[in-house]
């Protein structure tokens, strides 16, 4: 597990697309980056998992909660990220 932190200087937009949340049963992750945007410049990659927002654990947040939390960070956004690969889910046969 390769975890790291980025601190983005505001204001928004931060230049990334957030995907997932507890209500989707999918961990929060970065699904898209605006080329040259603040997130891209800080070294964030597509596929990174979001572990914490502004120092608080993001694990139990619904999508809207995470969205609001990020929106609430006006001047500075601090994200804890990770680059590991959790299991995939594809249509499977139960043998």
């Amino acid at each position, binding site marked *: 597990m390769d975890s790291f932190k980025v601190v983005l200087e505001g204001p928004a937009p931060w230049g990334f697309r*957030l995907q*997932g949340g507890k209500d989707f049963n*999918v961990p929060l992750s970065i699904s*898209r980056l605006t080329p040259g945007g603040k997130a891209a410049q800080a070294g964030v990659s597509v596929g990174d998992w979001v572990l914490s927002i502004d120092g608080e654990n993001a694990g139990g947040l619904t*999508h809207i909660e995470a969205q609001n939390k990020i929106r609430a960070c006006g001047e500075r956004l601090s994200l804890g990220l990770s680059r590991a690969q959790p*299991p995939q889910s594809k*249509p*499977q046969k139960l043998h």
Partner: protein
Amino acid sequence: MNQIEPGVQYNYVYEDDEYMIQEEEWDRDLLLDPAWEKQQRKTFTAWCNSHLRKAGTQIENIEEDFRNGLKLMLLLEVISGERLPKPDRGKMRFHKIANVNKALDYIASKGVKLVSIGAEEIVDGNVKMTLGMIWTIILRFAIQDISVEETSAKEGLLLWCQRKTAPYRNVNIQNFHTSWKDGLGLCALIHRHRPDLIDYSKLNKDDPIGNINLAMEIAEKHLDIPKMLDAEDIVNTPKPDERAIMTYVSCFYHAFAGAEQAETAANRICKVLAVNQENERLMEEYERLASELLEWIQRTIPWLENRTPEKTMQAMQKKLEDFRDYRRKHKPPKVQEKCQLEINFNTLQTKLRISNRPAFMPSEGKMVSDIAGAWQRLEQAEKGYEEWLLNEIRRLERVEHLAEKFRQKASTHETWAYGKEQILLQKDYESASLTEVRALLRKHEAFESDLAAHQDRVEQIAAIAQELNELDYHDAVNINDRCQKICDQWDRLGTLTQKRREALERTEKLLETIDQLHLEFAKRAAPFNNWMEGAMEDLQDMFIVHSIEEIQVKQLVPVRDQSLQEELARQHANERLRRQFAAQANAIGPWIQSKMEEIARSSIQITGALEDQMNQLKQYEHNIINYKNNIDKLEGDHQLIQEALVFDNKHTNYTMEHIRVGWELLLTTIARTINEVETQMLMRDAKGITQEQMNEFRASFNHFDRRKNGLMDHEDFRACLISMGYDLGEAEFARIMTLVDPNGQGTVTFQSFIDFMTRETADTDTAEQVIASFRILASDKPYILAEELRRELPPDQAQYCIKRMPAYSGPGSVPGALDYAAFSSALYGESDL
């Protein structure tokens, strides 16, 4: 004359000829028909007022009230929603001209080519010019075209009217003048959208004035469209003014298309929410089913792993029966549940993919792999259990058989040995004669051989006891006790026999010696003789006792014969059972195999429609369900076989377990295959369209493809959209253009047209589309209010939204504002930040 204000550029180009022709046309128009001017005045005034009243003002006289430019600018602001530059507040002519120019500049900035309209004419109150200018404004903002050239917008509007009035046989709209004279066209338009407002069947072609007035009355009262026409004028003019009619009809278009749009937006939102709620439900159901199944597995495995042996055959038989029950009654529904779970999972993932949502990840411990793992453990425990059951039963059977054998042998032996010790302890030889002792010896010899014959039996008894110990017989202690007693007694008998022999031989010897002396004492032997006789009689009695024993043995033999007979009958019955089972199993096994092959073949075939494939699979499913009786019958025979303790069957290679597993696999396979085809159909339908729809699209496209080269230009496309009721704003149209003409080539191909139409009509939604739908309901505001939601959506959906939408905190926020954009993107689990 065309006046150009120095320093102000109008973005237009025109030919001198064109300009002249325009003037001539207008002059000719006016000369030909002053009625038109009258109609236009009335209609345009009404139209302007319908907008100006929102700003709290009106005009009375169309060529007078716009002369200073102020109300003109106000009109433009109201209908466009944008602000114009501040008007000059002076009363001088140049102030007025400046203001009118501001208005004209604004119109030009909207891409309108202003031909021969100048600020001075307006300020001077030139009726012709003023009407022309107002018409330009109406065209641009009400009928939404980007040039003064009316063709495409007009055609679009006309086509829309034709479409909407097509079902009304007495209405035939071919133009914007004579076709409307009988008033039925207007009434039909109203009835088509709001049948509750008008009773069309009661209308009469011969009362045109009444019809027109009725339509205008209803439009004013219920549709917020002020009366803009004069019914008598229209009816009495041979050819009514086209522009007036177009203006009025365009108001209808806006009213209805707008309502349709709101309805479409609300429908789309409801659909999206319904999809979401359905997906949530499926996810919850998956979690619930997964929990239940896992729990059942956790409960069942310990039962299958319990290997405590029972004492009796009955108890084990009961266990076997319980296991059979489990396999026949309790497990099959669970197999089905597991299959259903898998199917649900796959269907859910497909639906999520189709509706553009992120994939479903079950919670910890309920993943597909967890369930597969648990199921595997269950089946392993099962297999071990059945083996163990059968082994145990065999063991118990043997053990009980042996124990019985032991008892019988032991009893027989004990009976035989009863009293022998006593006899052997007899000192009957002590007072016997020589002859008697010799006789006793002979008897003893006989006894000794009898004893020797019984040696085998005792050894057998001991051997059986030993085996019972090895087989872990539960009552081994008692067996051992008894065996021990028998063996001890045997030893004693052996010892006693030996002693008696010795004693008898000694006595014989002694008596021989005495006999010698007997002669000498013969005379004195008489009393001894008497005693001897008595003793001999006693001995003879014992012979009789032995014979009876023989008789008893003979009586036992027939009984044993009978049990042999019974055993033979039982073996025959078992053989019959075996054959019966085999005959069925040998038919069922191959049948299952052939069905599996059929199903496999059916899924390999790709030719033919999915529906055909589905029908075939359903047919197979039907056959399989009907075949279940055979499986049940086989189970019945299997039960009989097990109860009869038959564990082998050389007439068939199939065991009941083979058949069971094969059957379950067959059921699972057919369900799985059907589900695969269903999934394919889902995906196809999500992207597909019906043949009728395709025909309609083709017809529209061809109509607007003027050059017949398979391409529409932007204006054509816009007219086409208008004719389909897409009442578009600038921004929306621009967005759509980037979708259908992404390379900016200025043309729309049929393919991209179809793509666009299917996207709009298909079930796929994106967050943007949902946001656009909400925006319509929110009348273009960036937030929406609770009462707007309650007004436009069904109550439970409105409640759902109100509960979940976060508060809007952007610019222009008011208390109670809800952020529909954040909500919509959260539906798809994606937000841009």
